[in-house]
Structure formats: structure tokens, C-alpha cells
């Protein structure tokens, strides 16, 4: 999701208990452990980490959207809460898309690359402790 092509950010998410589904690229899984890179925006993301809101969709539906609609690959779905992001001073925003009303982003934009890596590690640790919320065939 690029800032240029993406719609403007909506309101900040405030329900600290709401979970944010994040797809896991299979290359970011080794020996069953998921890389912290899953929670670090890639260059294409321009600082906005794409997630899907648990108040709008299930982890399973989010997975199928990612795989069947967008045509990407996923090893499964991890989750962090809005509160866990806020605990790392990361604000999440609504950003519904025409084909994906559940879409939201976690905002890493103002952070340096090092800070992004640090926070990604902490979010990944929280998500790993929760375990996969959906895995195909699981």
C-alpha cells in the first residue's frame, strides 16, 4: 500500500482490545518461527503496515481475501492488538478500501529504519505469544 495510491487515512482506532490481522509471507517462517519482519513495513508500504480489523472481518476471511482476491501467498494470520501497537507508540488508522472495508494500517512513518525494526520485534513477540489466529489446513 503506497501513500500516493492509497485513500486518505480514516480515524485512529481506539478500541485497545481490537485485534489487527497480519498476513505472514511463507518465506518469513523458518522452523515454525515467524520473523519480526512480518511487522515491519516494506519499502513499498511507505511506513504504513497493512492489517485487517477483527471488528470487520475474521482472520480466516482476511486470509482468503489476501490469497484469493489479491493473489498473494500467506502461511497464515498473526495478530496484534490496537493496544499493543499503542504501547509501542504506534497509531492504527482505519483505511477501508473498495474491495476490503476491513483494511487498516499501523503507522510507522515517522520512525527511522532502526526504530521500525525495534518495534517490529516487540510486536512480533506479542503476536507469536498469541500464535497463529488462522492457518490454512490448521
Amino acid at each position: 500500500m503506497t501513500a500516493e495510491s492509497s485513500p486518505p487515512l480514516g480515524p485512529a482506532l481506539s478500541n485497545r482490545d481490537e485485534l489487527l490481522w497480519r498476513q505472514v509471507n511463507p518465506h518469513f517462517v523458518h522452523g515454525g518461527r515467524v520473523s519480526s519482519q512480518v511487522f515491519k513495513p516494506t519499502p513499498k508500504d511507505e511506513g504504513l503496515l497493512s492489517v485487517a480489523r477483527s471488528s470487520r472481518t475474521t482472520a480466516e476471511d482476511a486470509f482468503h481475501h489476501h490469497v484469493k482476491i489479491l493473489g498473494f501467498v500467506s502461511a497464515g494470520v498473526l495478530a496484534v492488538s490496537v493496544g499493543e501497537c499503542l504501547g509501542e507508540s504506534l497509531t492504527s488508522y482505519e483505511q477501508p478500501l473498495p474491495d476490503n472495508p476491513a483494511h487498516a494500517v499501523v503507522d510507522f512513518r515517522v520512525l527511522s529504519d532502526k526504530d521500525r525494526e525495534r518495534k517490529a520485534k516487540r510486536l512480533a513477540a506479542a503476536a507469536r505469544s498469541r500464535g497463529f489466529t488462522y492457518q490454512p489446513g490448521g
Partner: protein
Amino acid sequence: MPDDRTGPETKSEGERPAFLTPVFRGQRFGGHGIPLDVLPDLRAYRDLVLELAKVLFLRNNPLRKRVPKGFGDSLRLTLSQLREGSTVAVLTRDQSPREQPPLPNLVVEDVFSEARDLINECVRAAEECRSVPDDFPLELLAAFDGVGRHLKKDESVELRTPGEERGPLLGFKERKHLVLLTRADYRAEVELVGRAVAIGTDKSDFRIELDSGEVVTCPLAREREREVTTAIRDRTRLRIRVDGTGCFDRSDRLERVEQIDGFETIDTLDERLRELASLSDGWLDGEGIGLAPSNVDHVREILDNVLGGGIVPMPSVYPRPDGGIQAEWTISPWEVSLVFDFATHKVRMGASDVSSDAELEDERSFQDERLIDKVRSFVMTCLAGER
């Protein structure tokens, strides 16, 4: 599978009568040969025929206390032919007069055929879930543990006798059924992959922990001791694959490995880096630069030295979208990473204490003479604080 249900053939080449025509069924037998691994099963069959023939002979000759000298030598079975896509073996009896031991005044010829037929009845009973024939000695049922042991679970052998169009099928189910009639365990082929975790105190065995968490004991040959010791010392990195014969209880629980036929050490670091080296551009949903083989080799060399044969545990290793590689450890409460950055030719070390705000960071050039020491020391610092 070729159609092998043609008319029975009772003569093999050279006019020697066929004693048994085992027809092997299964994927491995669709080609042009019988795997050597399976040949011991034919020997086990021969041994069973011989033992059963001895019992039958003594039963038919109640005044004798033992079988005549040369009795065993008179059953010389030869694999004389492979037919029909090599799934059909022909066993003949070698009855060369000069090799035939003298068995004066005794009729033994038929007792081997009688034994063969009784074995077939026994297998047929198992196939049809019936009781085994009363005249089959119970003490010999355990011998089925060897007959067909090297067949895989989806394979079987049909024991076709001369004049029969169809013989009974001996597969895993029948073999297990027959063995468990008189014993509490049975043997079957196993292929295990796991981590070597310990050597027994008398060094006669070692233990593998499977991915399921189950720990299995395996025999340890002296010449393999060094390899197993290395695998134990570096067990976060090295896995082992064991092929052989396992002993299972009635519930199909693997009790132990009794014999190892194949042993292989798997270097999971090497395996993982080969995977990463095969990534091409776009591996991350269209993003992600492919990893240059020379860069992967460089990481292999650095990590190999850092891990030091088990001094540092094996990390998880991932590609980076920028064409670099990232190694990570969870060493509670630390989340540790090494970023191999090929744009700057540096290793960036980072550790975050997820229970506090504490962070550790360092950075070294690939050319730094103390790179290995620094990286190892960085990880060891986190290991020292592991909770």
C-alpha cells in the same frame, strides 16, 4: 502394475519346478527389479519354511528325536527368475543330485511343500481375519516378523504356489496380525527425522527427539559415535535421519529402533540457506530482491563461525526484501537479530528486551577482523540473561 494373473507356471527355466512364485505388489515393484532391501524377506521366508518343515517332519516321524543330518541343506531355494515387469519372482529348489544330502529311508520331499502350503493357509487366514490353522505351531508365528518386514505399508507379496492362480497376500496388516498372536510387539521399517539428544551411559544406544516430542532409543555403533556426539552438541542446527527396523507395541507405538540401515546428518543452516539462495526477484508478493549466491555463501561462512559447532544456538534465518539476510533468536526476554546488509557490507546486531525498554545494538563491517568474536559475544550476552 502389469497383469500377472496369467495361468500358473509350475516349471521355471532349466525345467526345475517352481517352489513358490512370490508376486510383489506396490509402487516400488512397478519398475524393472526387486529392491535389494526386500531380498532379506525371501531369506526369512526360506528360514520359516525350514523351521516349519522340521516341526512337520518330527510330527510325521514321532519315533525320531531330531531331523536327519543334512535336512536343512535339502531346502536350497534359489531366486531363479524375475518375470512380468520384475514383480514376479520365481523360487526354485536346487535339487542337484551331488548336492542332495543323503536322507536314507526317509521321505522328506513333501514336507517342504507341506510347510509352504501351511504357511499359505496361515497367511490366507490372516487375510480373511480367520483363526490360523490348528496344525501351525504357535511358536513359529513370530517368524512372520521377518517375512515381509521390508515391505512398506502399502506393499504386499502374493505367495503363489505352483498350480494356483492366486495365492494369499502377505502385507503389513497380515504380518502384524500373525506376529501379535503370540507376541506383544512387532517390527517394521521406520524412517525417523529428529534431533540426537543423548547417548546412553554404556554408549550402546542414543536417543532421538522427534518433532512430535517423542523420544526414541536407537542402537549406537562405535563407528557412528563421533557423528552422533557432534549432532548432540550442535543439536539446534543438526538434525539426523535414521532408517531401519523399529519395534512397535500393539498400539503401533514405536518402542525403539532395533537396527539402523541408514544414517544421515542434516545441516539445517545449509538447508535453509539453499532455500534462500533459490529465491528470485519478487519473492515478497512482487517485492523482494533475490539473494545473490555469493552473499548467501558469505552469510554461511559468518554464521558457521559464529555458531562454532554448538557454542551459539542455531537462529531462524530469513530473507530480507533488500536482498540481505536476517538471523533471529528469541532468547527470552530478548528478541535478537543480525542483519546482513550487503549494501553497506555490515552486520547490524540488535536485541530488544520485550519485558522492558532495554535495547542492545552494535554494528561491524564484514571485513572487521573481530567480527565473529563480536557477534558471538553479542548473542552470548543475551543468552547469559536468558530467563
